């Protein structure tokens, strides 16, 4: 146990080296007078900007509005991806029906939908939701389908022997059996959704971290741009960590380390 703890600690310490080195190089360049404030600010001014925005009560508004939008679009995509994925995964006919359409729509980047989305749904949240939804949908959908297809057929045979009804089959065999892949899809989907919200906000918005970024650009304030970029990165990482944890909890039965008899 002690050994394990040390290993995690060591991992964390090692993973801190590169970010700290980058920060050091940044500061070093500043001390050597290599930075011009209008192209590259010094590290402190990014922090100052963050403090300033936070004090004005604006920082959390931007962050929350982006996160909320992402969650909405992501949850819609999750519901659609699960329902559609289960149907396609279980029925050859339904699969045939959707196959070609999905194949053609899949390679279109969600951002390519922005012009149409704005025309159809306006520049408010609806169009952004649509982009986020598309960004999250495909990874989730495709992973649900392949997760279901990779479930060992012998479990379906078992369900037949015990005359397990449809809904029970879905909740006890299909979804848990596909869960590891579904969780991968969900993580990629949420990541995509986050990328999409930033892209959508950069094009038309009055709040959000994407807006903060374009706003910084229009004011020629690279400190604000960098702050927005860091926020995007950090929030994305934290959300993924959350999902990683959820995934670990849900697939406890599959954890090798705990495979000890009581």
């Amino acid at each position, binding site marked *: 146990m002690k050994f394990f703890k040390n290993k995690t600690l060591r991992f964390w310490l090692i993973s801190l080296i590169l970010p700290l080195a980058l920060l050091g190089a940044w500061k070093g360049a500043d001390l050597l007078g290599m930075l011009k404030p209008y192209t590259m600010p010094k590290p402190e001014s990014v922090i100052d900007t963050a403090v300033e925005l936070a004090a004005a009560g604006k920082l959390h508004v931007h962050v929350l509005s982006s996160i909320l939008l992402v969650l909405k679009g992501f949850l819609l995509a999750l519901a659609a991806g699960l329902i559609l994925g289960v149907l396609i995964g279980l029925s050859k006919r339904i699969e045939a029906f959707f196959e070609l359409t999905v194949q053609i729509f899949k390679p279109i980047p969600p951002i390519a939908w922005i012009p149409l989305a704005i025309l159809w749904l306006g520049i408010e949240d609806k169009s952004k939701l649509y982009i986020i939804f598309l960004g999250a949908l495909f990874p989730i959908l495709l992973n649900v389908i392949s997760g279901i297809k990779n479930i060992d057929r*012998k*479990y379906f*045979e078992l369900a*037949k*022997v*015990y*005359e397990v009804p449809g809904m029970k089959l879905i909740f006890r065999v299909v979804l848990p059996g596909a869960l590891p892949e579904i969780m991968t899809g969900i993580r990629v989907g949420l990541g995509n959704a986050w990328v999409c919200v930033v892209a959508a906000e950069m094009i038309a918005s009055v709040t959000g971290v994407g807006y903060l970024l374009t706003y910084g650009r229009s004011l020629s304030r690279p400190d604000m741009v960098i702050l927005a970029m860091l926020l995007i990165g950090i929030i994305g990482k934290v959300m993924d960590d959350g999902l990683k944890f959820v995934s670990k909890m849900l697939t406890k039965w599959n954890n090798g380390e705990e495979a000890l008899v*009581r």
Partner: protein
Amino acid sequence: MSDKVIIKNLNKSFPGNNGQLRVLSDINLSIQEGQIVSVIGGSGCGKSTLLRILAGLDTDYQGEVLFDGKPVTKPTREKGIIFQDHRLLPWLTAEENIRFSLPGDVPDKNALIQHYLDLVGLAGFEKTYPKQLSGGMAQRVAVARALANKPKILLLDEPFGALDAITKISMQDELLSIWDKEPITMVLVTHDIDEAIYLGHRVVVMTPRPGRIKGIYDVELNIPKSRTGLDFIKIKEVVFQEFFGASGSPFIYNI
């Protein structure tokens, strides 16, 4: 006693590379209610195929297979099957695996599940996941799961094949003691001659390519059954001769 299972002129082929591959040829067998029938034969002689047909998992055959006088058309809870692999759902605990198999309208499921887990000696392992169980324990959960559904017939496909000799012997005795309490009709597929004789009231010997029944032997062992008594040895020799011919049995007497 009445015939629980009647198999008449059963033929089964699989589509192969060059035409149909005949797997079962002219199988005729009746199984009486409450009887344990062992089916023994070499690898690939169609034992699993026969069992799957009995279970209703494979209905593409010629001939007649009757269960309780009616043709077998699909799997049902009445026909319990224990696969060679334990086939527990890895994401459900021992207890949940049994619950999964039960119909919705069973009263007092918890007590029922507990009863059968106790029966197979797994009290205390209710909340354990299959990965955390040993092979023998997992196979016992599979036995409990099959029994909890109160099958009228239990089909066992080399259920103890992957177990070590000692676990295997204790599982065999457990199965017999379960049968003593509740004499369910059983068909036990095995490639272990000792197991076939020890557990079966009748031993069906099969030969491969195509799989057919070479002989059926009644086993009349005293109760409690013995693995080393003279009766056991005698029957064993007969079965051996069936496989290896009358000349020189490879069997060494050690009594």
